């Protein structure tokens, strides 16, 4: 059986997460275009999510 594939996803607060590629992505989350195994996706998040402040905090809104 093939290893399950995941997507790196992001919401409007620019928080990252991962989601199974065969499952419908919940509303408000967007595919960042990176897909791979679970470990590959988490390693990718480690690289790209450099500022963990939610966007609204960063912009001084909350």
């Amino acid at each position: 059986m093939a290893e399950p594939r995941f997507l790196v996803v992001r919401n409007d607060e620019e928080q990252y997460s991962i989601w199974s590629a065969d499952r419908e992505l919940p509303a408000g989350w967007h595919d960042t275009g990176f897909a791979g195994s679970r470990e590959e996706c988490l390693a990718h998040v480690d690289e790209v999510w450099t500022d963990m402040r939610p966007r609204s905090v960063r912009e001084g809104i909350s």
Partner: protein
Amino acid sequence: MTREWTFPASYAQERVWMANQLDAGSPVFNVSVPWAFPAGVDAGTASDVVNRIVARHEALRTHLRVDDGALVQVVRAHEPTPLPTVDLSHLPAGERLAEFERLRGELARTPISLDAAPLWRARLIRLEDAWALAFVAHHAVFDSHSAVLFHAELAAICEAARTGAEPAVPELPIQYADFAVWQREQLTGDELTRQLAFWTGHLAGAPAVTGLPLDRPRPAQLGFAGDEVRFTLPDGLLDRVGALAVGAQATPYMVLLAGFAALLSRISGDTDVVVGVSTAGRDNPELAPLIGMFVNPVALRCDVSGDPTFAELLGRVRNGLIDAMEHGQTPFQKIVEAVDPQRDPSVQPVFQTALNWIPDSGLDPVELGTTKDDLAFDITTGESRLVYRSALFDRGSAAAVVRRYVRLLAAAVAEPERTVGALPLLTDDERDLVLGGDTARDVPVTTVVDEVQRQAAATPETAALVCDGVTLSYAELNTAANRLARLLVARGAGPETRVALLLPRSCELVVAMLAVLKSGAAYVPVDPAYPAGRIAYLLSDATPALVVATPDTAASAAGDTLVLDGEVGADQPGDDLTDADRSAPLRPGHPAYVLHTSGSTGRPKGVVVEHRAVTAYLAWARATYPGLAGVALLHSPVSFDLTVTGLLGTLTAGGTVRLAAIDSPAARAGGRPSFLKVTPSHLPLLDGELSPTTDLVIGGEALSGEQLAGWRAAHPEVAVVNEYGPTEATVGCVAARIAPGAPVAPGPVPIGTPTWNTGALLLDGAFQPVPPGVVGELYVTGAQLARGYHDRPGLTAERFLPCPYGPPGARMYATGDLARRRPDGTLDYLGRRDDQVKVRGMRIELGEVEAALLAHPDVRAAAAAVRVDGGGEPTLVGYLVGPAHEDSVRAELARELPAHLVPAALVRLDALPLTPNGKLDRAALPAPAATEPAEDSYVAPRTEAEGLVAEVYADILQVEKVGALDDFFTLGGNSLRGMRAMARIRAEVDVDLPMRALFASPVVADLAAQIEQRIAAELDGLSDTEVAALLAAEEGTN
């Protein structure tokens, strides 16, 4: 005297006989057949008709007997006997029917003893103008196809009686006993070995017991008590089942089974499902017209792994059933002996669930209140039913199983290409319930700083903090914190930075926490009592802008350090800081603290919790815990988020924080606190002086009613709240309040319902909500979620997932905890997902073992653990604190718990080891001393009864030397040999010793004790003269 002939019993008779021995007083094996004679048939004719059938079928003249330790069937010559009659025709119509039902029910529920012919009972009951037959036969001589044959012969013989012709009934070339003899000759040697090899291979590694969620723990002994839920499948569903079957080269039964396997997998979480199916056992044409017991159950093992589509699952079930049926003649008891020789009397061997498709025979008209299986469906074209074991399931749960089966089956046959994991189980209403209800509450989004300053302005003179004999008022505490905060800002603290607090429990610690919050930074508590290596790790992991230390702890600090020497900040203004005083404006979205938690794997990680999450929790806590406005005893390290309630909750409610170690005199100075939060492990420490007057909050670990019982009995006037919450969802996110005076039931205490603006989702592996009663992983959503893990984006992404059931873009935190929703919507906590342990294939619920240990009056505290010491098999170990003797505890556990939950070893401790946070320190539980009896630990039988039992074991099992502590099954016994052993013992001592005594007490000494007890009980029942007579007779024989 009536002539009789003796033949070996068939395997099916032997199996029913053995099962019957477990409770001979149960009507579980009664099979009822209703029949109405046509009008005009009188009682004499009706009696003759039944007698004709009895004359034709030897099975109806057969009973069973143990001869020389072997079970035989005894066939008697036919002697026509008129059936008893009851005339109800004089009763009014309504009463008549009720009386008929009563008579029929009474007959159906009266046990039929296997050792006297005939093994059936009948009554002729006259209704308005015709006779009805109530007929009940023991399953040892009658199966469901027999009922079909019986009907056909009644009809044919009645018709013949009317016309005077010969009845149209088939010739019977052989009789049931001939079949039994043939079967015994057939299934021997290589043939039997070959068949058993298939089954041992087929069932290798299969789960010993289903993971179905139970309403109650398994009792130590299975009984036959059961109940049933009757239902009718929706119109057209069986047609669609049939249509799918045709297209898939399968039978309707296979479709029904695939639906059942899918349901079991979804509600148990098992991907390896074993279901009982019955083979008719009438493959030879000569057997087809015979009344008798031919049915043989076999196990269908279904692989539901890899989230197959329903069509794929149907294919697997089809192949599995064909294989099973090809080997369906292997006697089930032989399969049990081959695959599951170590019987656990709390679990039915091999399978616990079954599904029968009986389109022809229909249901038994009488509900017997019995069951053989934990859950068993009987599906017919008319009324169907689910029979369930009432010791394990409530009626509501059984009804829910039926609803879910019907819903899942309907969806599966409509869309067989859907995956099993995506098939719907819930109705819309149930879905709303499991998605957690509405917790919305209008709470202002603020910072902890605003909340504390609001309180300081409102009650400046009230005592805010008592510590080391010093009392600080709100005004004093607030001013001190303001002064230090200004200094922290000057040293670089501000929003989105961290300040580590390397401080012991002291006034300074509380002042410094508030000061860090006021500066806009997040505080990171680092307990100076930690080992140097851990302190260094935490300080480097948190990347603080500044470390605050005392002169004593400064040596452990690294980087920029501020040492508190009593004078620090004294020259700073004492008024509240404004955003203008900070490096950047402080917002509710900025972090308030970073607390390190140790996961099951890896190094501690810092959980970043924002002000808005803390104030959301505190608003709920202040409303829930009135005691926070009084005196809160704060005893745990502040690095543990349990303390947030007593510290920040109190300081935002106008109460007084008493800071003291729980075992110090200072904890008691000033009278009982009004609020106290502890872990369950602290409960034994709470005496009268420490116990709170208003709120006792328990968190951090699973809580059982048994742990709480002692304290609760002494303090019924206090509210107890069981609070659940990972640090990642801020202190407490699900809670259950036990109001003053409300009772506490034994077993797990529920964790309740979510706090305000919080959701608690229970999802399965496919993120589908699980039905009430079903175990799922707990996911938390809403206002109290942490931002994530400090500097660990990957780990944060892994644990904080997109939420399919919330507003767009919402996250849910995967707690890794298992929970179950009760029908009233409250949650039960069931432990860590990673901690699910199995011993010999049986899932172990440590909480159940711990609760049973605590139920012993002389056990004060207890723990249970599964250990793998010395690389061997995992074993269950119980730990106890208190004066109880191990033997008495073990005996009590054996009475209360299923065998697999009785610890293999018990260890007595002076106290349970606790972590600094007050939780049970599982890693510090010691290994049990090697208590396994050594090979040569032979204990010679010590009493006459032990001597007898040992001799019988040795003889039947062909073992040279049997000691008092030897176990029948460990020595190689099985149920068949057990039957022989019990027959021998019964013959020797003439006591009524049921078969179940051996299953319950297979050790020589235990069984001997049972025998002695029974003899004593029988003597008790005799009068003095009878005893004297017996003794005299005994004398005479010696």
